[in-house]
């Protein structure tokens, strides 16, 4: 009983005497400042940084929508968080949008990250990639060019690599060659991607623009062969197998019924439509083939641009 009383008195003393000493209570950080010594004593953890950690955990576990929910709630619940934490919130918001392939929103979140933040470089690289993915190569290049990296060899090399990717996406082969001369091919983070870029450069250099006129002319002589000249392999024989029998039918009706006969007019028109369509298709196939080739190359470049970012910033 007496021990119990001593306990009550002791804790009452602590409550009435010691509490005023921790006079400044920062409701946001839950840190208590001793006014006499001005020492900061953290009694509980910072809820904002805890929430950011929780959001990071959600992102790592691929729960992007939940992470975004947490981050947006954080912004409304704590409108006046310190800049460093606001940068983290914006960065992770950018990340969640990026993983959900909402690149426009990702860019606007990444661009809110302050230059003084430790996440600034990450944000710039990711927003540059987002621009590239959206097809805005100029903005992607400008974003990278406005970045000054000092005393960080890894980021400098990554910066050079990303610029080279954008140069290749823009088909600026001269710039690519000058940037690729700085490739070291010995950095784990992007060595294989650097080699891949060189291959893409070779493919782009080798790719010859075929003549639409020539493709049409070849198809006019041998139906379907214009597409073969452009680079398609199976399709031309299909066109050949459709046009030849129709030509044979038209010729037969010409021989049997004459030039002005209804049979010849019908079958001849049918053949003419298929024949002309085939020639025109061959002309258009030049552009289609070119688009397919560049779309595939762009897809591969973007893939190789993206992998090193994940390796460097998500390790």
């Amino acid at each position: 009983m007496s021990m119990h009383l001593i306990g009550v008195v002791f804790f009452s003393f602590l409550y009435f005497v010691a509490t005023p000493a921790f006079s400044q209570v920062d409701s946001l950080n839950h840190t208590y400042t001793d006014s006499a010594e001005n020492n900061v004593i953290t009694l509980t953890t910072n809820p904002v940084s805890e929430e950011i950690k929780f959001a990071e955990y959600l992102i790592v576990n691929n729960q992007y929508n939940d992470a975004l929910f947490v981050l947006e709630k954080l912004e409304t619940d704590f409108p006046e968080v310190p800049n460093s934490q606001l940068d983290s919130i914006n960065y992770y918001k950018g990340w969640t949008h990026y993983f959900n392939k909402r690149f426009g929103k990702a860019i606007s979140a990444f661009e809110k990250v302050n230059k003084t933040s430790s996440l600034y470089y990450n944000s710039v690289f990711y927003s540059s990639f987002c621009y590239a993915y959206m097809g805005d190569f100029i903005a992607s290049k400008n974003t990278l060019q406005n970045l000054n990296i000092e005393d960080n060899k890894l980021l400098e090399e990554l910066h050079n690599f990303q610029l080279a990717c954008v140069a290749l996406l823009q088909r600026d082969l001269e710039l690519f060659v000058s940037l690729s001369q700085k490739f070291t091919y010995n950095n784990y983070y992007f060595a294989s991607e650097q080699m891949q870029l060189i291959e893409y450069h070779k493919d782009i250099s080798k790719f010859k623009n075929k003549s639409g006129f020539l493709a049409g002319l070849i198809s006019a002589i041998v139906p379907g062969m214009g597409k073969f000249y452009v680079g398609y392999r199976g399709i031309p024989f299909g066109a050949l197998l459709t046009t030849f029998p129709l030509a044979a039918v038209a010729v037969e009706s010409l021989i049997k019924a004459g030039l002005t006969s209804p049979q010849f007019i019908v079958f001849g028109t049918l053949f003419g439509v298929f024949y002309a369509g085939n020639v025109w298709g061959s002309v258009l196939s030049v552009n289609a083939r070119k688009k397919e080739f560049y779309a595939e190359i762009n897809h591969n470049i973007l893939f190789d641009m993206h992998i090193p970012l994940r390796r460097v910033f998500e390790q």
Partner: protein
Amino acid sequence: LICIFHYAGFSNSNNSEPFYKADSLKQSGDIQWAIVEYERIVYNTNDNSIRTIALLNKAECFAIINDFPAAEKSLKRVFYNDLVDTLSYNAHYNTAFYAYLNKNFNYTLSELLLIDNFLPDSLKIKSYPLYALALNELRQWDNAKEKMEVWVNYYFNDVTIVKDSLLKEIQVLYNPSKHPKYKNPEKAHLYSSFIPGMGQLYSGYWADAAISALMQLSGIGIALYGVFVVKYYVAGVVFGYGIFQRFYMAGTKRAEFLANKHNYKTARDYNDNLINAIIEIQLMYNK
């Protein structure tokens, strides 16, 4: 289905402190926030039981918004070591149930098999109606019947009249003479390769068979008419063969498709009938 089979597990409610916020959010209908709060419990706790209950509740939230794949995915994160039997049962059962709703019947069976092998009779037999439903979908009707009979014998052992009538009902439902008769898609393909429309006829589709045969015969007819009547040899062969060839190729593929359609439809009708019967039994006796 959700109302009945979901609660053949146990309630996931938990009155302990970490669940207050999430539970109240779920009850107030703020499902997105509740999902995040249940995940927060998973994130913060070192207690596997609390983690499992949080995951069960999170899955239930996903089920409320009809996101069954997410519900299944949440429950696949449960660690089963050192869980008490009822919680282990609940996690396995709910995973199986959401997998069933997602039509992952093999996964449903694998979860139920774990209950069957590692948990006591009182729990495992409770899961047998769901077990039977999954077995039905995999066309293992004899095994499904066996499960339902064990379930009836366990729960109604003392009530002979109910037991006998239920066993009789199950006997009628799963009578082998009522099992769907399947058509072999390869046979259907082969029949149509030899006789136009025969594969469709074998699969039970008269109209399709007639149309296919008619189109192929008209192709042959055009060819014969062109060659022998009007003497347009090339035109006859080109158009006649063109029409015949297209409908011949399409006909063989169509016959195969129709055999599969027949199989799906008969199995579906039979299983829907079984689902209704099992639900009715569950509703009537509330086990």
